[in-house]
């Protein structure tokens, strides 16, 4: 494993139920949700590689070992299959595990417990058992970590009935959706882009998991506009917003929809937006083919929004190659804000 990008996170142990509004980072918002859940419910525990004294590869769990002890903040061997399988077994017998996969890429070693076990037990056992577990997956590229430490694998999980998949983009959503995942009786995969961890934003911390207003399965219109709809999630929501801001100076009015949840997908919010703007651009960092964006496009094409479309639908997603190491190649593989600006400008200019 390459040296992980160390991120400053929780500097001091804060009041566990402080609901004071503050400006903080995405990583600290995640940590605050973890602490809230651990304080609210003693059945909640965490497991993962180097999440204890090390604080996690990205520092998200920094300080949690000191606060909750090693029974509940469990450093594990490098055994992804066993970590996730163990979590499934724990979830069906009365506890609520939260697993941090060190890099989302490593979840490939745990596909059996995630896809064949966690996703299926409730259904397969006739509803007689619930699997309330949360799997956090730090993913995405742009960190120079190359092909095995940079992937965006969310489409795999979004393809599996029985799993829920969330991909929060903001500090507040990172907090609220994680809490929502923790009170959900189903296995929830939380996709966290590594480049978001240091992102700052306003956070209203929730006192208990139940106080989270987030609903898994609801997208949000994060910028209203009339000329075209851009749909993204996770880091690409920010890129879309940055591009929209740039185009606003040119008089192009862009609406941005943040999916927030990838399964179940809130297609209605997207369809409504496209009915208003008549143009759709979808963006994600994961490779284009068979990505989550394809599902969004299919949903729009098969809906009443079809009659409102004024131009062909555009996708600005990842290139069809493994993540390269060299900076220029990596940048070319990942959709950049400039790529979005160009594509959005062209789409806006399409003759109506």
């Amino acid at each position, binding site marked *: 494993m390459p040296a992980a990008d160390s991120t400053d996170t929780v500097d001091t142990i804060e009041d566990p139920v402080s609901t004071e509004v503050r400006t903080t980072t995405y990583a600290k918002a995640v940590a605050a949700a973890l602490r809230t859940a651990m304080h609210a419910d003693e059945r909640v525990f965490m497991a993962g590689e180097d999440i204890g004294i090390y604080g996690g590869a990205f520092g998200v769990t920094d300080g949690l070992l000191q606060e909750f002890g090693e029974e509940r903040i469990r450093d594990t061997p490098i055994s992804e*299959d066993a970590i996730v399988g163990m979590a*499934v077994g724990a979830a069906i017998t*009365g*506890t609520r595990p939260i697993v941090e996969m060190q890099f989302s890429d490593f979840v490939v070693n745990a596909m059996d417990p995630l896809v064949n076990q966690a996703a299926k037990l409730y259904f397969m*056992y*006739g509803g007689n058992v619930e699997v309330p577990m949360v799997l956090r997956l730090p993913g995405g590229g742009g960190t120079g970590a190359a092909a095995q430490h940079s992937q965006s694998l969310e489409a795999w999980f979004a393809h599996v009935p029985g799993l829920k998949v969330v991909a929060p983009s903001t500090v507040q959503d990172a907090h609220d959706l994680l809490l929502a995942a923790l009170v959900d009786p189903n296995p929830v995969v939380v996709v966290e882009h590594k480049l978001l961890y240091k992102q700052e934003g306003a956070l209203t911390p929730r006192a208990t998991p139940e106080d989270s207003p987030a609903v898994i399965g609801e997208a949000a219109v994060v910028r209203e506009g009339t000329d075209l709809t851009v749909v993204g999630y996770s880091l690409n929501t920010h890129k879309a917003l940055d591009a929209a801001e740039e185009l606003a100076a040119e008089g192009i009015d862009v609406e941005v929809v943040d999916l927030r949840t990838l399964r179940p997908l809130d297609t209605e919010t997207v369809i409504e937006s496209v009915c208003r703007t008549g143009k759709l651009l979808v963006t994600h960092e994961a490779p284009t083919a068979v990505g989550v964006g394809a599902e969004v496009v299919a949903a729009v094409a098969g809906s009443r929004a079809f009659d409102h479309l004024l131009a062909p639908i555009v996708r600005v997603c990842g290139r069809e190659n493994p993540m390269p190491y060299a900076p220029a190649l990596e940048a070319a593989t990942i959709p950049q804000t400039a790529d979005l600006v160009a594509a959005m400008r062209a789409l806006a200019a399409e003759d109506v």
Partner: protein
Amino acid sequence: MPRHDPTEPSGALEALTTMWTIRRFEEALEDLYSRGMLHGTNHLSIGQEAVAVGACGALEDGDFITSTHRGHGHSIAHGADPEPMFAELLGRETGYCGGRGGSMHIADVGSGNLGANGIVAGSMTLAVGAALSQRLLGSSAVVLCFFGDGAANEGSFHEALNLAAVWELPVVFLCENNQYGMSMASDLSTAGGSVAGRGAAYGLEGVRLDGNDVIAVAEGVATAAAAAREGRGPALLEAITYRYRGHSKSDRNLYRTQDEIEEWRTERDPIARFEARLLEEGRLDREAIDGARQTARERIRDAVKAAVQAPEPTVDVLEEAVYARR
């Protein structure tokens, strides 16, 4: 206290009746299959009854089991009712899983049966998590993890054993070595000569048992479970047994001889051996033994009769079946 002690008359009667119930259950499935009433495949455990009955009888109420694709015997030995089991295999609404699981997914979580599993070694890591839960919740329950000789060559075997050992969790890993992983002979697939021998890698003793001797299995599991319950960590046991039938319905038995099968059936059958021993040692008389057979036969006959009359599930159940709701 273990649920039943096969060295005592009442425990012996219970064990014998359960062994017969498993055998009659499996035979009834063959019958239903030959009549075209089962639409999926199934994996029969005829010949392996002593492992399931000895092991589950050595547990205490409140303990858990995880099972395998060849799991009917484990379920019955852990207390499952044959009627909803048949209903499940027949794809009926009244089955343990409402007809959604079938042969390989029978579970009865309420009674501590965490389910059969269609993935070889798939339940081994789940057993570790169930054991961790027990410790975190302050329970003294142990988890009995059945797995086959084939599973011992999966990576999950290693990860599960290692994690249970470093965390000192109360899991009794019981390898039901029926000597073939589908067609692959265990001694050709298993480096090092035995599954039990691999225990040394995890600091575990690793004990081989005669899997066709219900008393030997019961004693081995009781000892391991007691140690696990006292906080002395996991155990690895290997029970040597034999399946008489093929792996599944597609099996033409091309990888072993009829002589080999006959030798196990006639000389080492776990039920016949147990009955002979009970008679010889005077713990049960012929009448009691015949009674056990009769009880099992009637139990299975009644269960099949009821199950075949149960309704099939309606398609509308699928809508609400995928996700649990708060």
